[in-house]
């Protein structure tokens, strides 16, 4: 009877269903005299704390203590790598950053106390978007590079080329259990923390650092987590540190729990990305060369942004061979939450970009996207752009073929075409996309794990290892592995919560590799124990140790069906013969390495493969969509626990679907998370569950060299959801007449609506609205603030050249305190706009010197700069430079010329020609902002 490979329910399923399974905050009632912590929050995205007086809080009834920098015995910083996250900052770096904490007998008392802490602020300018960060040169890291061949030359030699941009939204983890920690002092001067953390050892390290304690004084336990998804890999640390500091100061147990709104405001998310790309390809859609520049919004501190960017860059190939490619990655520093690990860890963003490119290639050539994808697949023997052989590359095409057949892809495509022909306002789309995902931590030293297995004299067993349980089924799988190895029924093994005093120096439970690592470590320990028990059982059974088998809770000699000894008796005999009944296990992943400097190596132990087919329906009236059917074929190796694996595939897909469709993460112009609650940030709910949802595993796929031949399954399925996004795009295309379908991510109803509108109903009723400009009648700020939207657009629609949408979108921020605020609001709308909209805005500007095409306002500004008084030489030079500029950047040269001479203009033109494409794009936007500023000053008094 095999236990590994059986579809057993989750190890804690019984406790989940009865409510008996405990999470950190469920323990709160067990601590008499527990104190509750509440933070004092910054009202600015960026500001200096010029004065802080916590004392008034103490006057509030029920307040026990306050926590400020002065209370920290060690180093007041929770930053994982760079020590760049002060717990009590003197300069706040994101909106609502805690600057002090109040401890109360009740939560309400702490909240009342926090409201009484007096803080003085000196607000500073904030960088809030990737575009702003690029313009300001505000970066945490990069550019990092991965290269193969000469991408520029390859593109130049290609018969077809394209270039474009894609903005990719972030994602809130929305683990159902928010961040929580409870700390107290143990009996011997140490501190113990119950923490909802994916990385107890790092939580221990940070607490030790803050309290100035060696790590043996700090014990961290994680019972289980109510979801984590990467959001508790490093971001559980500050809350644990505050709880520990509070306990240290007050000698009482302290609880820190972030309610949902605080959790969403304070913790990092999946990184928003901006991608700029260029590609060269042949007439059949085969990529010849590509250049991809990735920018991530890292937020205020470094966190894990650098490895996240690396993984994005590693996955910019997805399943495709890129003969010549240049991938660059830059982590932007903004005044926002510090973005962090999230299932896929950058991989999803990288993969989305190459899928975007291939779809554009297909639509440019009017080829079926699935055909273009298939033509670019890796073949056996090829290597990735960082030099790793693509092991089992043929699986990509195998999965592709089998899934197309099992999902009836071709026939359904035809059915859909018939449906679409009959429905002018409702279109369906179908798409298939592949996944290739590398398994291992890309920082090689993390790929190790330890275990401690304890057998008691009655034959019952405790299993300890370094991994934490967050719902992914690690405990279930490891229990199966141990049960299989020791030949015991599952109930004989108790899975212990992760504790730093059982297994030290553990890695985060992350990178999908926890079963591979911890399972192998536990198997190592079990192997040793079996080896020690076999001679004893052999003596009892009268057979050589090699012939002893353990199964079903008994020992027996191979081939002997009659004589059996219960496991407990073997154990008792071993005890009496003074044989150690516990063992430590250890595992490190063999053969992986990567050199960041050269961008070469084999960072992954293996790749997990899969593909998905999705069919959607889009309502052209609203932009709403529905996922009708999903078919998945995924490679989990030899499934170790099929119920768990299927759960990971389905759950991962739906979470990816959320990221790409309903989940829209927005920040407002002040840097606040605008979607900071369950009512404004929408997770996939029942309505997102496809009516038909077929999941199958690739058969005969055992992975040699991995525990039980299984493959990691936590992250890869998330990216299967890209099929749904591509199906939406296919449906949008069906409204139009062909060509590229620009669609930023997530594909919200509004984005889909406008994409449909652009494609099919270009002559919508919005045309011809408010193109007026700064030369119109002047209005006062009070008047502006009182205008209805249409009138507002009427009078300010021309402030941004031929782009009334800027005014339209800024209108709702009224009232504006001054022209600055008005300008900032409009500028924010441009910065928040899609790349395509920004480009259109730049292109709406008149060409320098070609007055014919100018709007009245621009004509006025250029006449004053003396451009009409050029000498013939100057004229020729201007024309030459201007032409080169247009060719290089594809938009007209824009300079806020007020107060500049023709000489200034020529110099500026020459200098800016040296800029990189992205750099100049941002420069041009800055000029546009400046022009808008002049115009506002002229129009508004």
């Amino acid at each position, binding site marked *: 009877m095999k236990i590994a490979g059986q579809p057993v329910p989750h190890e804690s399923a019984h406790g*989940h269903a009865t*409510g008996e399974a405990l999470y950190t905050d469920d323990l709160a009632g067990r601590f008499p005299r527990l104190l509750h912590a509440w933070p004092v929050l910054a009202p600015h995205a960026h500001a200096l704390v010029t004065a802080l007086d916590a004392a008034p809080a103490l006057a509030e009834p029920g307040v026990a203590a306050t926590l400020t920098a002065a209370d920290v015995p060690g180093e007041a910083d929770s930053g994982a790598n760079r020590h760049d996250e002060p717990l009590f900052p003197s300069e706040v770096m994101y909106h609502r950053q805690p600057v002090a904490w109040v401890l109360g007998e009740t939560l309400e008392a702490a909240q009342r106390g926090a409201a009484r802490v007096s803080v003085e602020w000196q607000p500073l300018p904030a960088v809030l978007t990737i575009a702003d960060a690029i313009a300001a040169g505000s970066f945490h890291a990069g550019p990092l590079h991965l290269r193969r061949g000469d991408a520029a030359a390859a593109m130049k030699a290609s018969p077809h080329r394209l270039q474009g941009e894609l903005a990719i939204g972030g994602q809130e983890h929305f683990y159902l259990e928010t961040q929580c920690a409870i700390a107290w002092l143990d009996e011997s001067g140490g501190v113990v923390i119950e923490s909802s953390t994916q990385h107890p050892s790092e939580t221990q390290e940070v607490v030790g650092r803050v309290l100035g304690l060696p790590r043996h004084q700090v014990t961290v336990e994680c019972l289980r987590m109510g979801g984590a998804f990467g959001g508790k890999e490093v971001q559980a640390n500050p809350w644990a540190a505050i709880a520990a500091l509070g306990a240290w100061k007050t000698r009482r147990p302290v609880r820190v729990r972030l309610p949902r709104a605080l959790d969403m405001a304070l913790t990092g998310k999946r990184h928003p990305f901006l991608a700029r790309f260029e590609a060269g390809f042949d007439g059949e859609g085969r990529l010849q060369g590509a250049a991809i520049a990735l920018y991530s919004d890292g937020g205020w501190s470094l966190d894990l942004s650098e490895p996240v960017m690396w993984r994005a860059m590693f996955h910019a190939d997805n399943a495709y061979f890129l003969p010549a490619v240049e991938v660059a990655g830059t982590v932007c520093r903004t005044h926002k939450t510090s973005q962090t690990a999230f299932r896929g860890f950058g991989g999803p963003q990288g993969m989305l970009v190459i899928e975007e490119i291939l779809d554009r290639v297909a639509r440019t050539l009017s080829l079926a996207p699935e055909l273009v994808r298939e033509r670019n697949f890796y073949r056996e023997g090829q290597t990735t752009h960082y030099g790793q052989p693509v092991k089992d590359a043929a699986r990509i095409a195998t999965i592709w073929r089998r899934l197309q057949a099992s999902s009836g892809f071709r026939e359904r495509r035809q059915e859909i075409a018939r449906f679409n022909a009959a429905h002018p306002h409702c279109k369906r789309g179908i798409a298939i996309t592949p996944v290739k995902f590398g398994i291992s931590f890309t920082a090689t030293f993390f790929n190790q794990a330890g275990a401690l297995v304890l057998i008691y004299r009655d034959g019952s067993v405790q299993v300890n290892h370094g991994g934490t349980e967050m*719902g992914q089924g690690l405990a279930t799988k490891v229990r199966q592995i141990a049960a299989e190895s020791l030949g015991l029924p599952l109930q004989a093994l108790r899975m212990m919560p992760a504790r730093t005093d059982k297994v030290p120096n553990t890695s985060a439970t992350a990178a999908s590799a926890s079963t591979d690592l911890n399972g192998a470590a536990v198997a190592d320990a079990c192997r040793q124990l079996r080896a020690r028990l076999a001679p004893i059982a052999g003596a009892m059974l009268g057979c050589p140790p090699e012939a002893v088998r353990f199964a079903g809770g008994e020992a027996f000699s191979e081939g002997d069906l009659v004589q059996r000894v219960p496991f407990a008796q073997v154990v008792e005999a071993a005890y009496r013969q003074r044989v150690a009944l516990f063992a430590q296990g250890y595992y490190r992943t063999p053969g992986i390495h990567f050199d960041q400097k050269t961008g070469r190596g084999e960072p992954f132990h293996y790749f997990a493969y899969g593909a998905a087919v999705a069919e959607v329906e889009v309502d052209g009236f609203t932009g709403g969509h529905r996922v009708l059917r999903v078919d998945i074929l995924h490679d989990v190796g030899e499934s170790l626990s099929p119920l768990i694996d299927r759960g990971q595939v389905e759950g991962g897909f739906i979470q990816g679907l959320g990221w790409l469709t309903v989940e829209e993460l927005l920040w407002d112009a002040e840097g606040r998370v605008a979607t900071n609650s369950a009512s404004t940030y929408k997770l996939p709910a029942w*309505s997102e569950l496809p009516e038909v949802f077929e999941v199958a595993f690739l058969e005969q796929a055992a992975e040699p060299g991995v525990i039980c031949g299984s493959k990691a399954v936590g992250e890869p399925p998330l990216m299967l959801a890209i099929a749904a996004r591509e199906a939406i795009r296919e449906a949008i295309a069906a409204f139009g007449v062909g060509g590229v379908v620009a669609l930023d991510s997530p594909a919200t*109803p509004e984005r889909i609506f406008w994409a449909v509108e652009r494609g099919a109903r270009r002559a919508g009723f919005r045309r011809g609205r408010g193109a007026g400009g700064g030369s119109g009648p002047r209005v006062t700020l009070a008047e502006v603030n009182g205008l209805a939207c249409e009138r507002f657009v009427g009078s300010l629609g021309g402030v941004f050249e031929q782009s009334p949408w800027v005014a339209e979108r800024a209108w*709702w921020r009224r009232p504006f305190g001054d022209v600055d605020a008005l300008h900032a609001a409009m500028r924010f709308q441009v910065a928040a706009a899609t790349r395509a909209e920004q480009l259109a805005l730049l292109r709406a500007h008149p060409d320098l010197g070609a007055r014919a095409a100018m709007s009245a306002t621009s004509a006025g500004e250029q006449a004053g700069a003396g451009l009409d008084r050029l000498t013939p030489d100057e004229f020729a030079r201007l024309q030459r430079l201007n032409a080169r500029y247009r060719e290089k950047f594809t938009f007209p040269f824009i300079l806020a010329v007020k107060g500049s001479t023709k000489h200034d203009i020529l110099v500026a033109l020459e200098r800016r020609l040296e800029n990189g494409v992205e750099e100049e794009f941002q420069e041009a936007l800055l000029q546009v902002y400046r022009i808008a500023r002049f115009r506002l000053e002229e129009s508004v008094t």
Partner: protein
Amino acid sequence: MALDPHPDTFSVEFLLNGRATCAENLPPHTTLLDFLRSRGLTGAKEGCAEGECGACTVVMVKDRRAGTAYVPVNSCLLFLPMAAGQEIYTVEALAGNGSLSEVQQAMVDYGGSQCGYCTPGFVMSLFAEQHRPGREGPCDPHSMAGNLCRCTGYRPIRDAARELGPAPEGAFRARLANPAPRLVPVSCPGFSRPGTLAECLALMAGHPEARLIAGGTDLVVEANLRQRRFPYLIGVEALEELRVFRASAEGIEIGAGLSFAEIDERWRAMAAAPPVPRAWDDWVPLFASPLIRNRATLGGNLATASPIGDGAPLLLALDARVRIAGPRGERMTPLDSFFLDYRRTALEPGELLVSILLPAPLPAAARFYKAAKRRMDDISTVAACFAIDLDDGGRVLRARLALGGVARVPLRAVEAEEAILGRRWNQDAVRRARDVLARTLHPIGDHRGSAAYRLALAGSLLEKFWWEQQEELAA
């Protein structure tokens, strides 16, 4: 977890998992969820504290048309005094002597839990569904549409539900043979639940600082998320006057204190009532979730006067009038003059909504539409209800174009209505109306959608309405 002690003596009694339970010395804004957890009943979890996630689901025993029922509700949205006299069960009550209930076993067997944090909530919703009086066949997975799961993607939970048949014999089924406890009046510091309308009006007169509370699905969210504190709350749950559902030649009268689930059930069950209009069928599943519909009332929805509330567009298109009671007696007001400004209504101090009247005949062809980021259980970006009656010649006899999310108040687009009156109801008329809408509406932009999108939707939804009519005529 310790809760704030309240200076005034305050005690609330109710039946919790079959035992009389008394909660004392707590502030009246303590939620049932916090109370349960402070008593060690930690099966119910807090995932959001605003009725969105369902992790806090418990069931209350209530009388329903089809019989006594377990009604699942969000325990995070009940102030403790609202629980007074109720009979409540939590997940801890379900498993008996170590053996799981059928619902729990199905969740285990199908892999319905991963992290398990949401599971008790799903179990309670599904438990209520399995025991729903009059239910036949497998359980309806949509009964759990108010429960969010971040891990599973719902498929295993759907399959678990479809596997469950009739409620098993046992104490829980036997309990439903008897009626639910009657709601008795309650009075404690900071909270009263009067038993009659007259008492309620008197209390309101004596407590100008008081706020009414019905289902609490708006008010408790304000307390939980925005730390609003209400010095005095008057619960309307026990007022029979607000729980009428009457059909007459004049039309239908719907009590302001009925929950949406109750209205739906009564309407469908009442043979004498005019048939349920299409728009109501459209509306119900789009309004929040089953958990919220078990508590939320029409009175609360209209009195909140949210510009993106869904009740107003529906009722405006049906020409609703509201019955208002106050210190000077009763009065009737047409709904289209009820909303004065952003979250301001025609209710005077001391007044409350008693009922809503829908005059007969109800427009047969009315339809309700809701555009939101998520298809179900989301707040509207734009909501619209259109009712158009044609004469024999196919010309517009009466038009009601009601919209939410396009202005500071829900409104009827009267100018657009006028623009099509007497015209043939064709694409041309749609275009005319769209043009007028584009000129006269002034929506705002926010995180739910830009102003331009909202404006476009208003016209686009009207076009959708027209198209769907044509498709139906053709079919």
